[in-house]
């Protein structure tokens, strides 16, 4: 089931979840050493949409500089005591200064500049330092560093207020996962430059941690990795549905709604998904999963679970016996047996 582990360190969802774990409060006994949290850094925001100030946009237009008008770093870390902010972006590989990804990088460099407080909606004193932090596989550190150097120099030559950047490399060897920290990042985060192991590895074992964010339709993943993440999403939807059914008190009709299931499965991230196509895709996945679950439940009785628009799925629980039978069926159902590799097709109820 698990894909090759060396590819894993380039997977954006793995990287994102790893950044989140590195910023969690954990004891020494934990399997992960939270390098960021130990230095006072917590998660400030996940994928916030940060608009570039209009005067900067105007200047970029005037100088024919390609930037994104609003940019969404994967995570913003904060050390509140020292008023430091790190805009963190996870990438599978390096990119060149002429690539389309460079537009995003220019905007991120502007975010981390002297106007970062303004972009975050804070007053000047609330941000003492800001930094753009890239998280990439170790073999991408050097080429990405060269690209960023070119981009930063270009911006500065045109008098744009850019910030500093660092490139952290994730590496995997037989014994551990490490974060290779450069001089700039080391000074900002107070982490020793060089390799910093943060997780011990066991032989033949997938090193991924539990995923906070199980799925993101917007990121590019290998087929195997996408399949596994889809399974994690389905498992989490399954647990949300089972919890709802387990709590029901018959006789009753239980309503299951797509947005509620998705919110429960993503710690409420779904309702903040601003990319409408992505949200639609998530709803399709939810319908795919619940549709399969419905077939199993309806083996008890053909009308045990029905779909009604716009309410959602109605689960009929007329008595205790039916309740127990439904729980029995739901607990035996396993998403591993589904066609996880297939993407669901557009449907009539996509927008519901």
């Amino acid at each position, binding site marked *: 089931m698990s894909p090759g582990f060396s590819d894993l360190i380039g997977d954006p969802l793995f990287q994102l979840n790893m950044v989140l774990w590195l910023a969690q409060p954990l004891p020494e*006994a934990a399997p992960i050493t939270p390098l960021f949290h130990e230095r006072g850094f917590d*998660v400030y925001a996940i994928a916030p949409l940060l608009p570039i100030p209009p005067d900067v946009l105007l200047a970029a237009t005037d100088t024919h500089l390609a930037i994104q008008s609003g940019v969404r770093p994967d995570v913003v870390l904060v050390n509140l005591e020292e008023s430091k902010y790190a805009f963190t972006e996870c990438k599978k590989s390096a990119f060149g200064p002429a690539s389309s990804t460079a537009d995003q990088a220019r905007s991120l460099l502007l975010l981390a500049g002297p106007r970062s407080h303004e972009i975050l909606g804070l007053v000047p004193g609330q941000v003492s330092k800001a930094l753009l932090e890239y998280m990439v596989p170790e073999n991408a550190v050097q080429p990405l560093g060269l690209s960023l150097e070119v981009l930063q120099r270009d911006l500065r030559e045109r008098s744009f207020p850019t910030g500093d950047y660092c490139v952290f490399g994730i590496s995997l060897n037989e014994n551990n996962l490490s974060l290779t920290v450069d001089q700039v990042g080391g000074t900002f985060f107070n982490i020793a430059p060089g390799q910093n192991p943060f997780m011990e590895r066991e032989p033949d074992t*997938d090193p991924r941690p539990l995923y906070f964010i199980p799925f993101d339709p917007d990121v590019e993943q290998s087929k195997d990795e996408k399949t596994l993440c889809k399974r994690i999403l389905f498992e989490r939807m399954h*647990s949300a549905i089972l919890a709802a*059914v387990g709590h029901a008190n018959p006789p009753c009709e239980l309503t299951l709604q797509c947005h509620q299931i998705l919110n429960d499965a993503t710690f409420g991230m779904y309702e903040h998904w601003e990319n409408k196509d992505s949200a639609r895709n998530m709803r399709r996945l939810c319908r795919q999963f619940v549709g399969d679950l419905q077939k199993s439940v309806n083996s008890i009785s053909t009308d045990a679970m029905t779909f009604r628009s716009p309410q959602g799925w109605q689960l009929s629980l007329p008595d205790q016996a039916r309740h127990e039978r439904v729980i029995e069926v739901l607990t035996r159902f396993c998403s591993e047996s589904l066609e996880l590799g297939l993407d669901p097709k557009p449907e009539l109820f996509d927008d519901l």
Partner: protein
Amino acid sequence: MTEQDLRQIRGRHHLIRFFDGYAAERMEEIDERKLKRPLVKSHLLELLDRDRCGGHESLEAIFSRRQVNLTPLEDDLFLATDPQMGDIGFLERLRPRVVALYSTFKSEELIPWIHRLVMHSPEIDHVWLSGQTFSVLWDLVARLSRPQRFTKLVFTHESIFDIDDSSVSTAEENEMDFSRVSEDEDIEEIVERRATRFQLVDRIGVIVQKLQKLQDVYSPLYAISQLRFPSPVGRGGHDFYDNGRVTNRSESFLDHRNHLLFVVRIYEQLLKSTEDSAWYSIRESIGTPGQFRKIVGAPLVVKFREPLSAGVFDSLIQTTFQRKRNRLRLWGHPIRLGPTKVHVYGVDRHLWQPLFLEFTDKGCVAIVPDGTCGNTVHRLVTNIQRFLDPGAQAFVGGKPYRQMVEESARKVSYEPRIQ
């Protein structure tokens, strides 16, 4: 005590006076080694609500769903009646989230009845006192009582996952949990399996001196499953069990109830601090409402004292996630990530609350989503100590679980005569 006796009791004052007299009679019978009637036993139960732990749905409604009729006697005090067994005893809401059932039924009747009630209701669970919680309560016992007083500690560890024959069903929770019944005075344990069970009765001063040294050389002694609070107003004391059962072996019911209140207040504080720390959710960043989301919360981390063998690890995963009535009461489909590592995005099968778990041979990490009752955490820690590793250390975020219990205990004053 007959049903007629119970029905004559009209309120709390009457109840306490009645049980005080009943307790004194039993103590005299114990002195004469002729116990004619069962001792008073209290069962501490936690109430859970889907949307809010300890919600305000009436107790009558919650218990009537389990065919238990509650007749109100006074505010938060009821007579509990089972249609088959008759009047069981009195149910009192001690705190918003915790009720006590006082009964004089024999253990072999009462314990299975409580077990069935809890097993079939996602709204009711035992109050779970882990070995680490008992360890802090033991420190309180040592501070509260003179060193010459006698006390009793029981240590229970059953390595149910360390078995030669995987077909043996010790890892399943039976309809009637004999191991817990047998801890009482009435029945001798007859189940044979690899297990450690010590009963230690000695002067408090002696135990204070020796216990830590004994625990250092033999880790099952961390798994305290029963502790006697000596009564400060007379002989005997109050035996607290890890699943919230409390036997009154003192001559004062009032003192018994005071001890229940004391421990329940600590437990309630512990629940609150666990939930405040461990709930994971996406929330808006402070100062920027409506715009930024961040993850708040802290994971539960359990580290085993010694890594599990591959056989024990496999047995843990198979018996827990392939059996409906598993001891840890978890459900999920494990995602195998290596020989001794699995992820489970599952459910607490008793309370029906999502729970995300990483099990390895070295420990367990749990993500507890927002709204999950702290009870899930305490049951998991209790059962890991009891069935997997008695010396396991638990942390919520960076904070040791034991420290959380100590802080919860510090917030509660000991007031022996408060009602």
